[in-house]
């Protein structure tokens, strides 16, 4: 269960959003949408433990995320959350496989079978030794998805996973995310202003930022 209580965030004295409350049961999917600049990515950072909110609490299965010490927040993120960032945040000097390995090292698991299966499912099995810098945008997106599922996390966060893709690739990525999160029995929390996503994934909840909740 993911529970958010009265989340507010101020930046430079300006209130970006306030009093966000939500409950998301395990294996249920949430879409967070809203216009650009409304604070969707900031909310994702808060939910992932990357940015402390001005007030409020985030509770994962009775664990209050921001009551943990900072090192424990990092460990919790590595073990329980998978994040697909809008700009992928891949290590460009590493190969495809090394990007998965480093994610695996972070949580202390190592299995070359797992890397191969993951890369196979995202269609990058034949590119495992290619450096990320040499991949196309679509391939980077797929790798970012694959990396988020290393360690089979309980919660998957995706920030605008399809907004820079054409319809065909958007369809591939959306299906991939949905399939992998179902396989891992993970809750999917997806942030986007891309209206196509609702036709591709069936969300159990939708949170519209900037509108009445």
């Amino acid at each position, binding site marked *: 269960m993911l529970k958010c209580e009265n989340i507010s965030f101020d930046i430079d004295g300006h209130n970006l959003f306030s009093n966000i409350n939500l409950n998301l049961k395990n294996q249920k999917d949430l879409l967070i949408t809203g216009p650009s600049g409304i604070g969707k990515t900031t909310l994702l*950072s808060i939910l*992932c433990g*990357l*940015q402390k909110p001005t007030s409020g609490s985030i509770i994962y299965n009775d664990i209050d995320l921001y009551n943990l010490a*900072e*090192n*424990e927040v*990092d*460990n919790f*993120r*590595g*073990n329980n959350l998978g*994040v697909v*960032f809008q700009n992928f*945040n*891949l*290590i460009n*000097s590493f190969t495809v496989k090394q990007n998965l390995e*480093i*994610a695996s090292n*972070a*949580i202390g698991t190592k299995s070359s079978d797992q890397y191969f299966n993951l890369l196979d499912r995202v269609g990058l099995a034949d590119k495992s030794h290619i450096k990320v810098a040499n991949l196309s945008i679509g391939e980077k997106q797929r790798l970012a998805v694959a*990396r988020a599922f290393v360690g089979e996390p309980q919660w998957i966060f995706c920030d605008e996973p399809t907004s820079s893709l054409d319809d065909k690739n958007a369809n591939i990525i959306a299906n991939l995310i949905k399939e992998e999160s179902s396989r891992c029995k993970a809750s999917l929390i997806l942030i986007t202003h891309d209206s196509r996503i609702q036709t591709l994934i069936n969300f159990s909840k939708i949170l519209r930022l900037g509108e009445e909740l």
Partner: protein
Amino acid sequence: MIIGITIITVSILVNQITKETFSKNNPGLDAVVGAKGSPLQLILSSIHHIDIPTGNISYQNAKKIIKHPAIKSAIPISLGDNFQNFRIVGTNKNFLKLYKANLNSGTEWSKPMQAVIGHNVSKVTNLNINKFFVGSHGLIDTGDVHAEQPYKVVGVLNKTGTILDNLILTSLDSVWNLHSDVNKGKLEITSLLLKYKNKTSAFSFPRLINKGTNMQAASPSFEISKLLKLTSNAHKIIDYLSVLIILLSLVGVFFTLLNNINERRYDLAILRTLGFSRLKLFSIILSEGMIISIVGSTLGLIFGYLIYESMHYFSIVGRSIELGQLNFLNDLFLIWITVNIIAFITCLVPCIKVYKQNIRTTLLNS
């Protein structure tokens, strides 16, 4: 860092070994009497067999000194020849007693042109009992040999760890036989190695010799301590230079780490998003710096030791001073640990920078 540690290692080894060797080579001698000239040269040539002698003295005059009431023991030595750069020393059998030398095989010499050789001489030249060799003129092998009168090896000494290991000993008669044409029957020796009956003679006896004769008396402990004082100043300058090089290399490590962190701050932030804790990244960066420091300082010690070992090897073959054994690991370990503690403190600055990094800001700025 490697260069700095190498230089300081060699400096420490040579400094310590020189002191130890000088101390070992002097079996309690109070004075050396020889021809006038540099007293230090007289000591170095007669006891440590490094320098060339100041000249010769009359054996008749030497005998008067031997009989002097202040003298407990006096051992004459006569230099002039070598075999493959190992000095041939004409002396009497008390010389062996002076160094408490034991024969490994064979016997002491009993007649002219018989020789007892030191441990290293046997090892390097492969000379052994009943083998013959011919001496070369002078103290360095020039190829100008006394082919007509070879020496016969009658004894090989056990290792003593002193200069004795590098000497070929024979009777005074042997040396006089070979150089009789030069001396025209007038017997000469190079010097007399003396022990006083009473230590108070250390003040009066040298004055007596230096003022009353054409010879000089020099004190080994006084001359060697003067020499060590001079060389220790040189060692200090080398040590300061090494410390400077080490400090500069540590500054280099510091800026390399800092630069690496600046270049990789985005990657480090990504690692945080994947679950690497701040503490884990802190320890990774610290390990990187410490690996550079530990590998650098260890290689420096190894290279320093290898240089020392080369010097040790060449000292056996070509020179008289033996550098002894490595028994000052404490000093080297102290340097190694100090360098690495300083490196550890230096590395903390970039590590703290990583520890305090704000992931979200870094990712947004990138």
